């Protein structure tokens, strides 16, 4: 389709310098090439494949606990086969139900949507789209992956220990998470959870530092900040968020570890458990601590974390939409500034998760203000995406489908955020299924869709110029899109009825008990969506090895730099000099040219005949 020959506009300064890293001559064995690789593209693959495997586990867990919620009276022999003692007689043990919920949340938020999404695409796209040969520190980049890997291994081990994994929720609030006597998951399982999270923080920091340093310092000639693709802007602010908020989570974890193992009382006070007063090993009464302190520290990371999850998806969607509508992103500057505003405000709203923790109501109202203010930049982004489609020329590639799905989900979930951000209403909705519906739609599903969009779009750059099967992708999209709404939309109704989240069974309460049909419906939808993901998984792994080979350098008609690299870019990305950049990446349908790659200078443009089409739109 692309009528422009990429090479016309590629200024490579034909003089042959030898100053670029010539890693092509290096002897690479299997280990240095695929395992301990320092090539950002391989590291991106490692993050992606690891993330996909974790996603299968995390979503499978949600199916297991949805079985319990949908059919509380039924017994499922398969559960006993899978889980053994945790599901005697085919019925899930409540303790293990909470362990599954906790692992589901932790895995999905941190391993899939932070490492799997941001890790994959920051690594892949930052050097490729800004025109760099690799990250600022490829070695740190490799460490970042391996710390993530270790975090994963530790979490995986915790699934198999006798007392079960952590079961205090993904937020791990003390005292529940601090007292091994309070629940069986708070023993060794929680210790492993903390160890795993600490490793994960290190991984995120190493990654984030690298991303920011690379973006600010290693752009190619002509690539000013305002010529960066929106993906890069999004990764940039994601990394800033991570670098500034993850250390605080680490502090929270360290204090918790001390409370658990050293007998301190940062978070604990006046506790009577199992028939006795809590004392430390020296026999002193534990007092003077505050569980609320943990919540402040946790949510100081926790809220930015939801933006760490969603911003990369926003960047991917903006880029994919413009490319496939062959129309510039509407309001590029507004898009950049709104990401910036979201980043800044994202640090100022953490306590909206704590309205009902007994904190000062005046503090609560300040947090309300900032919380609802975040709706403004978010609204700007939504309107800009919609305007990007207006009078566009939309080609429904699989990535485009997921991008449109993303916008729909982001709207649906974002609007209920306005409800929850209002503390007067949050009294009713806090810790009910309304919250579950809200954050799954706006964060979990939307970010998942952003990730799918990214995978379908950049698959050829990730895996040696192979493409995924589009028909499978469409089927995958429709089942997942309709299915996600079927799972999570009805949860609003449960929330409206006041049904609390993190309930193993609803039958103990009259007010929560009247929704058997609805819960079955949700569970069926969840199972269907779960199996539909295999449409993706099979397509993914099949295409890595046997997918259709990309025929054009630039299959989607994109303007950005990554498509100027060879079909299978080596370590160093460009053969010869890195191309120079002359324009922003969204010159679509301008002056009769459907696409104008960033590498096209004004002079080149004169040589390219315009497409003779009437721009009636």
């Amino acid at each position, binding site marked *: 389709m692309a009528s422009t020959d990429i090479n016309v506009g590629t200024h490579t300064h034909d003089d042959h*310098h030898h*100053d*670029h890293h010539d890693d092509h001559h290096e002897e690479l064995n299997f280990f240095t090439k695929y395992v301990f690789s320092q090539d950002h593209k391989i590291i991106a693959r490692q993050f992606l494949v690891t993330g996909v495997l974790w996603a299968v586990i995390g979503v499978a867990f949600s199916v297991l606990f949805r079985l319990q919620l949908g059919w509380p009276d039924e017994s499922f022999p398969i559960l006993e086969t899978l889980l053994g003692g945790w599901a005697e007689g085919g019925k899930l043990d409540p303790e293990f139900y909470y362990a599954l919920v906790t692992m589901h949340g932790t895995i999905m938020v941190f391993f899939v949507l932070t490492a799997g999404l941001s890790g994959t695409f920051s690594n892949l796209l930052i050097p490729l789209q800004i025109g*760099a*040969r690799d990250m*600022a*520190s490829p070695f*740190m980049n490799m460490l970042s992956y391996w710390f993530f890997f270790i975090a994963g291994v530790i979490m995986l081990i915790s699934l198999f220990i006798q007392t079960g994994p952590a079961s205090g929720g993904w937020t791990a609030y003390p005292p529940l998470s601090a007292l091994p006597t309070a629940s069986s998951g708070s023993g060794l399982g929680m210790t492993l959870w903390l160890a795993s999270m600490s490793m994960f923080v290190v991984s995120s*920091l190493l990654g*984030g*530092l*690298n991303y*920011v*340093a*690379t973006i*600010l*310092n*290693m*752009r*190619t*000639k*002509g*690539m000013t900040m305002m010529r960066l693709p929106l993906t890069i802007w999004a990764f940039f602010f994601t990394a800033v968020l991570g*670098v*500034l*908020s*993850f*250390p*605080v989570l*680490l*502090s*929270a974890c*360290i*204090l918790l570890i*001390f409370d658990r193992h*050293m*007998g*301190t*009382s*940062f978070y604990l006070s006046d506790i009577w458990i199992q028939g006795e007063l809590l004392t*430390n090993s*020296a026999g*002193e009464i534990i*007092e*003077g*601590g*505050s569980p609320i*302190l943990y919540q*402040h*520290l946790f949510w*100081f990371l926790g809220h930015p974390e939801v933006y760490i999850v969603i911003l990369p998806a926003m960047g991917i969607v903006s880029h994919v939409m413009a490319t496939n509508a062959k129309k510039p992103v509407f309001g590029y500057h507004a898009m950049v500034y709104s990401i910036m505003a979201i980043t800044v405000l994202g640090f100022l709203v953490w306590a909206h998760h704590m309205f009902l923790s007994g904190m000062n109501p005046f503090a609560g109202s300040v947090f309300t203000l900032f919380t609802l203010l975040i709706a403004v930049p978010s609204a700007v982004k939504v309107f800009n995406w919609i305007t990007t489609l207006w009078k566009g020329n939309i080609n429904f590639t699989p990535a485009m489908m997921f991008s449109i799905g993303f916008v729909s989900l982001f709207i649906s979930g974002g609007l209920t955020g306005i409800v929850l951000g209002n503390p007067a209403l949050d009294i009713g909705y806090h810790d009910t299924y309304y919250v579950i519906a809200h954050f799954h739609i706006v964060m979990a599903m939307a970010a998942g869709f952003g990730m799918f969009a990214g995978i379908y779009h950049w698959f050829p750059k990730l895996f040696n110029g192979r493409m995924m099967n589009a028909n499978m992708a469409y089927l995958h999209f429709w089942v997942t899109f309709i299915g996600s709404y079927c799972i999570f939309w009805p949860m609003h109704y449960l929330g409206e009825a006041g049904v609390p989240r993190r309930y193993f069974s609803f039958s103990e309460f009259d007010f929560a008990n009247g929704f058997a049909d609805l819960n079955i419906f949700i569970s069926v939808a969840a199972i269907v969506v779960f199996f539909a993901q295999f449409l993706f998984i099979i397509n993914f792994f099949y295409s890595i090895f046997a997918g259709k080979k990309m025929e054009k350098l630039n299959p989607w008609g994109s303007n950005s730099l990554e498509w100027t690299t060879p079909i299978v870019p080596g370590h160093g990305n460009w053969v010869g*000099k*890195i191309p120079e950049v002359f324009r922003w990446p969204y010159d679509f349908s301008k002056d009769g040219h459907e696409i104008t790659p960033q590498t096209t200078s004004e002079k080149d443009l004169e040589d390219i005949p315009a497409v003779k089409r009437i721009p009636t739109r």
Partner: protein
Amino acid sequence: MAEYYYSKIHPKKFALWLGLGSIIMMFAGLTSAYIVRQAAGDWVFYKIPEVFTYSTIVIVLSSLMMILSIRAAKQGNKSLHRLGLLGTILFGFVFTLLQFRGWDQLTEIGVRLTGNPSGSFLYLISGIHLAHLLGGILVLLIVFIKSLIKKDPVKEILETSNPDRFLGLELASTYWHFVGVLWIYLFCFFYYNTI
């Protein structure tokens, strides 16, 4: 690195500065937890042991040694450079010993890790700081050992045209100064928040 049109500062240096920012966030988290907890009342006040004043002086001396060493390196005075590094490292060790002494003194006056959070915080925050400092000592040791290795004279001449030849040293020194300043901040913080 000549390829990068926009590099004004070496990316590794930049990454280090960012990393320092993230360490600052960690300590900001800890010290604000301290303040929040203190404001909640039920707080046992005590006087911070004098040893910590001495360790503050030692860490300043150590930073001065570092400055000396890096200056010598740039002037080509290798032996002074090595001496300076050695001094930096030695003062680092002295600081570590003094911190341990400080903790002992705290225990002697009845402020223990497991008592009131006011004490726990002091142990914890100074402990985490010390962990960062020990990391710094490790880096300095590596730099020191590298400085002992004899280089091929030809290579050495070639090196002189490389603007990044002091990069490792500069990174180490930036980190070291940072850890020092961080301690001075923490010391002042504790000083004004105890008593």
